[in-house]
C-alpha cells in the first residue's frame, strides 16, 4: 500500500496528493501535513489540559491497538526533545481468548521499537480470573465490566511504576460516543463531570492527548507512518452500547460534519457551567481505599459480585 500516489485532490498545504478530506473544514491533507496536524493538535491538547511534561514519569496505557500505538509514537517524539520526560508503557491483558494474544504481541513490539520500558499485568494476576471466565453467561455486560477493571488495573500499574499521570489513546470519536452513552443512560454525574478536571479526587491523573483527533485521522497517521497492521476485533465488541452510539454518531457526522466535535464541546460547556455542583463528593472506597463517590468503588463492587447480582435482576 502506498500513501504517496497521485489523485485529483490536492493537499491544501502543499498541493501534493491528498490522503484525507477533513469534512468539517473542507481542507485536504497529504500524509506529511496530516501527521504534522495530528501531532500539533495532540501537543496543544496536552498543554491546554496541563499534562505534566518535563521531569515527569508518564505511564502510557498501551493496548496494542491503533490509538494507543499512535499515542506512544507521538509521546516518544516529544520525549526525544525533552530528555527528562520519562515514559513507561503499561498494558493490561484482560484475558480475551483469540483476540488479546495478537494485540499483546503488537504492544510488546511497539514498546521495543521505541525503546520504552513496558509492563504488562493480567486480570488473572490482579483479580484472580480472566474476563472471559468472569463474564461467562453475562456476555452483554463484558464491555462495562472490562472498562471498570481495566481502569483499576491501569491505576495499579501506574502506581507501581511511580508514574505521575496516565496518558490514554482516547480519540474524538471515543469521547463523543461516551457523551452520547451517558445521555442514553441518563448518567447525570458523568455528564456533568468536566473532562478537563483530572486530578481533583486523588486518582493518578489521566490525560487524553488524542481527544480532539478523529479516529480516521488517528488511523491514517498510523498507516502513513507504518505503525501497525490489521488486528483482530474484540469478540465482545458487538455486545456494547458503544457500538450503537458509534453507528449513530458516524451517520450524523457524515450528514453534518463536525457533529462529534460539537457533542464533546457541548458536554464540556455543560460541565463547566455546572462547576462544583456537578461533581460527586470525594470519598474513599471502604474496601480498597481508592477515591470514589459512594462507600465502595465500582471495581470492588464488580470483584465482590454485586454488579453481577444487580445485572441479573434487570
Amino acid at each position, binding site marked *: 500500500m502506498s500513501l504517496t*500516489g497521485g*489523485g485529483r485532490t490536492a493537499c491544501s498545504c502543499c498541493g501534493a496528493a491528498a490522503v484525507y478530506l477533513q469534512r468539517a473544514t473542507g481542507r485536504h491533507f497529504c500524509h506529511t501535513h496530516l501527521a504534522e496536524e495530528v501531532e500539533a493538535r495532540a501537543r496543544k491538547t496536552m498543554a491546554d489540559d496541563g499534562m505534566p511534561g518535563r521531569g515527569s514519569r508518564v505511564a502510557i496505557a498501551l493496548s496494542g491497538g491503533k490509538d494507543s500505538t499512535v499515542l506512544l509514537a507521538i509521546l516518544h517524539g516529544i520525549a526525544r526533545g525533552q530528555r527528562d520526560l520519562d515514559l513507561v508503557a503499561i498494558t493490561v491483558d484482560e484475558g480475551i481468548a483469540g483476540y488479546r494474544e495478537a494485540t499483546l504481541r503488537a504492544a510488546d513490539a511497539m514498546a521495543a521499537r521505541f525503546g520504552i520500558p513496558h509492563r504488562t499485568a493480567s486480570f488473572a494476576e490482579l483479580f484472580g480470573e480472566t474476563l472471559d471466565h468472569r463474564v461467562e453467561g453475562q456476555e452483554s455486560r463484558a464491555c462495562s465490566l472490562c472498562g471498570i477493571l481495566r481502569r483499576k488495573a491501569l491505576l495499579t500499574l501506574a502506581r507501581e511504576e511511580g508514574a505521575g499521570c496516565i496518558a490514554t489513546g482516547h480519540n474524538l470519536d471515543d469521547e463523543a460516543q461516551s457523551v452520547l452513552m451517558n445521555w442514553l443512560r441518563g448518567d447525570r454525574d458523568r455528564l456533568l463531570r468536566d473532562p478537563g478536571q483530572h486530578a481533583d479526587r486523588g486518582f493518578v491523573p489521566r490525560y487524553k492527548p488524542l481527544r480532539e483527533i478523529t479516529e480516521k485521522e488517528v488511523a491514517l497517521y498510523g498507516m502513513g507512518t507504518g505503525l501497525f497492521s490489521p488486528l483482530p476485533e474484540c469478540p465482545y465488541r458487538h455486545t456494547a452500547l458503544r457500538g450503537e452510539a458509534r453507528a449513530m454518531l458516524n451517520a450524523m457526522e457524515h450528514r453534518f460534519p463536525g457533529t462529534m466535535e460539537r457533542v464533546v464541546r457541548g458536554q464540556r460547556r455543560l460541565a463547566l457551567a455546572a462547576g462544583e455542583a456537578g461533581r460527586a463528593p470525594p470519598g474513599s472506597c471502604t474496601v480498597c481505599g481508592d477515591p470514589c463517590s459512594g462507600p465502595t468503588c465500582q471495581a470492588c463492587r464488580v470483584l465482590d459480585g454485586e454488579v453481577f447480582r444487580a445485572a441479573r435482576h434487570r
Partner: protein
Amino acid sequence: MRVQLPDGTVRTVEAEGIPVEQVLGLLGVNPVEVIVTRNGTVVPEDAMAEREDELRLIRISHGG
C-alpha cells in the same frame, strides 16, 4: 470497477468517473468509517473513481 469490502468480499460497481463517496453510497458504506485505497494508494472520498480502478475499503474501528 472492482471494490473489496472490509470483510474481504469483492463487489463490482458499474460506474465511471464518479467520486469515491458515491461508490461507497451505492454499497451502503459510510466514508467516516473506512479508509479507501484506489489502486493501492490511499485517497480521500472526494477523489474520482474510474471504471478500471480497484478500490479497497479498510475499516478503521476496532475494539470494544
